């Protein structure tokens, strides 16, 4: 392989994992827009999606086409259940309390996952075989195409949902001004529950499609969440196109860094990007009004 092909190979690997960061970032944004909460359990939804898929396909022997939606649905139920039990009953919680509650939620989900699936990494067969496709000397796995297609579906689906459907518009109204939304008859509390359902579903989709490539274990979620948050911040918290672009960018940077610098520091690269953005431009690359929102805290 020549230098170009190798670089291209790193980019392909980066795009695959970057799509996952993008989806996690989108999940952060949906909840943040609706509630102002950063959900520290976001990565656990990804992990759960992968784990449910493993059980449904290897133990229950369901075909991918049926197991996929069931796995996502199960995680959505977990997401809604978490919101209903732990966040819904609170009256005027402080930011610190919300942070600690979502962290506690992530610890609980992690513990339950360890209880259910054990400590070792779980394997999931690739959906469409493992025969690599050759592109300009570099290879791409069919599973990577699944990942990209999922990201595309999620982005198009969200765009349709938020711009064309009544519920989607109601959610956007809550994000803009909860009081005004309440005045025109939108139940803000229901929208909050819905936002948890939606973002846990997106996390689950990410988990299902990435598990064949990276394997899944019960404590995988934390790092995915941290990098997904990096994507959300880099793209400008609350901005969906920003999160997608930034997620892909972080994935590619990380993959190039692992290839050309050192694979030891692979995880550190994304985090240094996260800190760098927070320090220099907390509004993100595409955000500007969000700097104002910082003052809300």
């Amino acid at each position, binding site marked *: 392989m020549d230098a170009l092909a190798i670089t291209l190979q790193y980019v392909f690997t980066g795009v695959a994992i970057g799509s996952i960061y993008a989806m996690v970032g989108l999940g952060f944004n949906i909840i943040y827009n609706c509630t102002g909460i950063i959900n520290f359990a976001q990565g656990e939804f990804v992990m759960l999606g992968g784990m449910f898929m493993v059980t449904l396909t290897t133990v229950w022997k369901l075909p991918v086409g049926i197991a996929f939606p069931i796995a996502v649905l199960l995680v959505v139920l977990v997401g809604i259940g978490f919101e209903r039990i732990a966040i819904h009953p609170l009256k005027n919680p402080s930011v610190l309390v919300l942070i600690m509650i979502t962290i506690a939620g992530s610890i609980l989900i992690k513990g339950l996952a360890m209880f259910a699936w054990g*400590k070792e990494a779980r394997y999931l067969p690739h959906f469409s075989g493992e025969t690599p496709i050759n592109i300009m000397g570099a290879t791409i796995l069919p599973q990577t195409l699944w990942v990209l297609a999922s990201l595309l579906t999620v982005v198009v689906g969200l765009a349709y949902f938020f711009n064309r459907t009544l519920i989607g518009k109601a959610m956007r109204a809550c994000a803009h001004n909860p009081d005004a939304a309440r005045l025109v008859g939108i139940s803000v509390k229901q929208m909050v529950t819905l936002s948890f359902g939606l973002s846990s579903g997106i996390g689950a989709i990410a988990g299902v499609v990435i598990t064949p490539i990276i394997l899944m274990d019960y404590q995988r979620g934390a790092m995915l969440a941290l990098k997904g948050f990096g994507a959300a911040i880099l793209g400008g918290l609350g901005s969906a196109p920003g999160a997608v672009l930034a997620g892909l960018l972080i994935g590619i940077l990380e993959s190039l860094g692992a290839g050309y610098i050192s694979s030891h520091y692979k995880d550190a690269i994304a985090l240094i990007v996260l*800190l760098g953005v927070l320090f220099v431009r907390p509004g993100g690359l595409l955000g500007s009004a969000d700097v104002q929102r910082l003052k809300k805290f």
Partner: protein
Amino acid sequence: MKHYISLAFFIVVVMGLPMIVRNPYYVGTLVFVGIYSLITISLSLLLGYAGQISLGHAAFYGIGAYTSGLLATRCHLSPWIGLVCAAVVAGVLAYSIGRPVLKLRGHYLAMATLGFGEIVYIFLNSTVELTGGPSGFGQIPRFAVGAFSFKNDTRFYYLVWVTVIILLVLVLNVINSRIGRALRSIHGSETAANTMGVNTASYKMQVFVFSAAVSSIAGAYYAHYVTFVSPATFDANTSILLVTMVIIGGMSNVWGAILGALLLGTLPEYLRTFGDYDILIYGAIMLIIMMFAPEGLAGIAAAVKRKFEGTLVPRAAA
């Protein structure tokens, strides 16, 4: 004055405890509670008084353990010098990252400190030649004064808890001073504090650096007590554990910080029968406290006291 009575009582209990608790294993557990207390007391100053969350304090704890441990094993420096170096290294690092970090608030600050902790953790894992990587390194010498070595658990117990008492006296004085009032005003409203002429940035920085240095000293104690360090002790879970200790005890209460360290520091002993599943119980406790008693145990005590006084003393008479 009230503080001094509590303090005197505390000193008597702490000094007398090893005479009752004879089992070296339990004394060892109390040593860890002491080490945790050092961190939680300083963290409660940052979290409860200055109102700044840090989910990265395990990093400073680790930096202290590694700095002092490495200086003692590689450079054969006395652990006492290592201890001072550890505090200085963590303090300088906290100062350099504090400038951009402390401008952030709420969720941003939480994520930034979490990210910082994770970077330090990755660094400790990756520098294999220097630190031994994931498997860590051992044979760290113990503290000694001349021929007197702090080699058994009881001796180390006194070393740690005397340090806790010194820190406690220091922090209690700070809280009841001009600085303490300034910190509380930042917690109330940073904008209002600024308007009143409180240099909020400077105070936040001082507390951040102070808590980092103290956590680092706690790390050095850990290294020279266990005589072995590996990165796993200083991961994000430890950071979360430390913050949980502070919150469970009651954030803006220094005594609560010690109580939190005692409860969660000894919790693994009670949960031993549950084996690996202790993580579930730990998560559940955290969730329940946060949902129903976000003010922590000190908050519950205060509420009970208020209610009790309210029934005995009519409002008009009080």
